[in-house]
């Protein structure tokens, strides 16, 4: 007959994020691997939005999870685990772009979207515009860029973004507004040049 504790111990994949963190801190093998598996895509995409290329995004994603592992005991569950990981991700990315200007990857180099329904011309135009927008986002000031990425691509609310960035909701809304305004200016300037 198995001990009571073992009978109560649920399989890792049945645990929510908070209990998975607890299991990880208790030393259960595989707990952190499951955290990585659940959040690797969103963390990678966040990093990619910041740096614009696969290699850097991949390195940064690994760095995010390594820092998360080291600081796991400081996770109190006040926010969701994904929000906490985004906070680490934004800090890691901001540090990276502060010391190294990211090399923007040509979009069609890794584009695996379904383009069968598009005409050749439409696809080229869409990809060119995509490159322009990504380049414009990369020129935004770091806080505005972080706000834009978290709001548009990670679909975080302004409250959650405020938690991630450690600022007020009002400041987040102002950052978002100015990020869109600056994006318009940058794209407009490029169109004028073209």
């Amino acid at each position, binding site marked *: 007959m198995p001990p009571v504790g073992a009978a109560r111990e649920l399989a890792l994949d049945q645990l929510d994020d908070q209990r998975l963190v607890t299991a990880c801190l208790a030393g259960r093998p595989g707990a*952190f*691997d499951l955290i*990585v*598996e659940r959040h*690797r*895509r969103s963390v*990678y*995409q966040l990093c*990619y*939005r910041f740096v614009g290329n*696969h290699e850097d995004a*991949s390195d940064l*994603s*690994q760095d995010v*999870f*390594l820092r998360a*592992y*080291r600081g796991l005991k400081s996770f109190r569950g006040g926010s969701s685990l994904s929000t906490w990981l985004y906070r680490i991700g934004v800090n890691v990315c901001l540090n990276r772009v502060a010391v190294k200007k990211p090399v923007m*990857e040509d*979009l069609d*180099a*890794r*584009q*695996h*979207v379904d383009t069968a329904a598009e005409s050749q011309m439409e696809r080229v135009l869409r990809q060119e*515009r*995509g490159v322009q*927008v*990504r380049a414009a*986002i990369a020129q935004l000031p770091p806080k505005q860029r972080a706000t*834009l990425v978290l709001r*548009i*691509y990670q679909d975080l609310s*302004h409250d959650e973004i405020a938690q991630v960035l450690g600022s007020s909701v*009002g400041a987040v*809304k*102002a950052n*978002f*507004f*100015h990020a*869109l*305004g600056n*994006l*318009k200016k940058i*794209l407009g300037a490029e169109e004028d040049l073209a």
Partner: protein
Amino acid sequence: MIAHLTPEQFVDIIDGAVTDSDVPHLTACEICRRQLSELRGLMAEAADIPVPEPSLGYWDRLSARVHDAVAPEAERPRSWSERLFQPRVLIPIFASAFAVAMFVVLQPRERLTRQPPPAVALAPIPSTPLAAAGRAGLPAAVVSLPPLGSANDPQLALVAESGTAFDWDEMRDEIALSPGTDSSAVLDSLTTDEQRELQRLLADEMAQPSVPETRS
């Protein structure tokens, strides 16, 4: 002068927290209406740009990389500070420190609040038979004597005083005068040899020169 929408109002409208019809200014202000339209278009355009999907098997490789990076951290023996700053270690330490602090803080107060002893103190417990005897009738000064063996031990002085109070001549007379101790009867009980020896001892004693009697 028309007050245009604030950045926060624009963002609330873009997010859908506030509908266009909730803001009458939009109907009247062409500038704000156009700006709102541009912001919405930009947001939609930016949101439409996907992140390229990495190659097949990339996610498993990323997991493996993270696993390999974390593994040395997981196997690393904990430093003394990490072991110390654990609740199961810190809580008993703080509890003990708190208990000691409370003991130190409260102890003097307890002494201060303690009532002074009554004016008539109980006699000390006698440590010697002499002191016990003192309880039975000797003067109070004798009862509270210091321990035996001190340099000017009053108990020894008491013994010495009692010794000098005896008069050995009186004691001898008392013995001689006590009933049943007639000297002739004693002599009659001696054998002939004993009587002869007694005479010899008396003769020797009488022959010796007289010395002053000393007692020690």
